[in-house]
């Protein structure tokens, strides 16, 4: 037991520390006639409580477009983003609900998709950081599954979006470099297992809803080999992504 004492004290210190560090919670004033509270974060859940005008609610946390709030008498329920946006802070300022990132000016993008690389099935995942509204740095990892070999490809490149303000469809062009690792499925083993590569790409992107978007890309690669000729495979892919 004495050995456990420091541990218990440490645990207690952590718990007390956490309690003290508890952040102040946001309180909002209901200025519309009433604010509906639902039992779950979805449009179909039943309304079980209504907060009247002039009362305050405490905002606990959010999930997608729904906010968990606590009514003055302790009832807790979910209210929609649109409803909560009509409330105000005590000072009269509008409720500080973070706006959706603007599609034209978003910073980060993370996505995955399906494609065809040199007539092989391709699984792709990527992360993309916007240097400016129209110029992005993209990092892609992908795996191509062929009958004779599998290839793992990682690339780093730059992509230019011609007209970022076009939401539904905006063409892109890109350039980059990377590395390809080839693994034979059937003998003989490939002459080279690792090759550097470069690519140019043409593509398009578009907004779907909220933080959701699609992306299409066609790429033409040059794979640098030690043989007489370089390989020049092509690839297309379609992906879905979320942006922040």
């Amino acid at each position, binding site marked *: 037991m004495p050995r456990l004492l420091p541990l218990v004290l440490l645990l207690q210190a952590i718990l007390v520390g956490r309690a003290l560090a508890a*952040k*102040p*919670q*946001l309180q909002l004033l209901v200025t519309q006639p009433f604010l509906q509270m639902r*039992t*779950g*974060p*979805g*449009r*179909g*859940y039943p309304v079980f409580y209504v907060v009247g005008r002039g009362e305050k609610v405490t*905002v*606990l*946390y*959010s*999930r*997608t*477009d*729904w*906010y*968990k709030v606590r009514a003055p008498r302790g009832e807790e329920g979910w209210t929609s983003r649109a409803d909560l946006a009509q409330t105000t*802070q005590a*000072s009269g300022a509008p409720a*500080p*609900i*973070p706006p959706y990132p603007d599609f034209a000016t978003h910073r980060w993008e993370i996505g*995955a998709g*399906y494609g065809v690389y040199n007539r092989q*099935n391709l*699984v792709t*995942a990527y992360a993309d950081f916007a240097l*400016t509204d*129209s110029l992005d740095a993209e990092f892609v990892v992908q*795996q191509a*599954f062929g009958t004779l070999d*599998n290839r793992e490809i990682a690339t780093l490149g730059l992509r*230019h979006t011609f007209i970022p303000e076009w939401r539904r469809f905006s063409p892109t*062009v890109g350039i980059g470099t990377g590395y390809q690792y080839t*693994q034979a*499925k059937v003998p003989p083993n490939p002459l080279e297992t690792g090759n550097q590569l470069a690519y140019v790409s043409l593509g398009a992107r578009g907004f779907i*809803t*909220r*933080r*959701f978007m699609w992306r299409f890309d066609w790429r033409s690669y040059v794979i640098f080999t030690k043989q007489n000729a370089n390989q020049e495979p092509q690839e297309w892919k379609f992906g*879905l992504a*979320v942006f922040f």
Partner: protein
Amino acid sequence: MEIRLSCVLLAAALTSGCAWLHRGEHRPAPVGVEGSSGEASGEAPIIEPQVTRRVVKTPKIKATDFELGAYFGALSIQDFGTNPIYGARAAYHVTEDIFMEGFIARSTAGTTSLQDVFPSITVVSNSGRRFTYYDVDVGYNILPGEVFLGRGRAFNTDLYTTVGMGDVKFADKDQFALNFGVGMRILLTDWVAMHMDVRDHVFETDLTGRTKNVDNIEGTLGFTVFY
């Protein structure tokens, strides 16, 4: 692109040039009463501001759109029996309907019926018995709802469907695999969810002599945490 880029650079240069020309024009007026009678006569300023501006910091609303967890269950590997499987999953909820999810899991195949009858025949090596996969999926909550436990407890649920693709590594080979699944998420609290999933991993293989699509169906139970 080049013209556009040069335009941007030119604009930036112009702006900074203009700013330089106007430097000091809008310098804020010095605070205090220097130059007035107070300073001249050596007296202290009449008003000494002691009130510091109060910084009002609005608390941020914590978003809980990510889900992370683990699962275990049984995987039926076609021609190789049913075996335990365990894995990890991570999801991001984009809207109340759509989510994106990734899975990674591992199982070990048993023996084929052929091998049971003729023990000398080896279809896959011992190291090849390991069945691992990763998947990237898109999911849709088709039927959100509530379930009731007894008289006083209700849990929010979602019946969802997922579709995606990934890699199945089996018999020391990586294969492209599609997966389709249906699952149920029961939120025990707002933070902790229990999942029950059935998913089929379909891929093409020639392990048993002829090329065919194999269905590998798994039934799993999992727990996740929202954060």
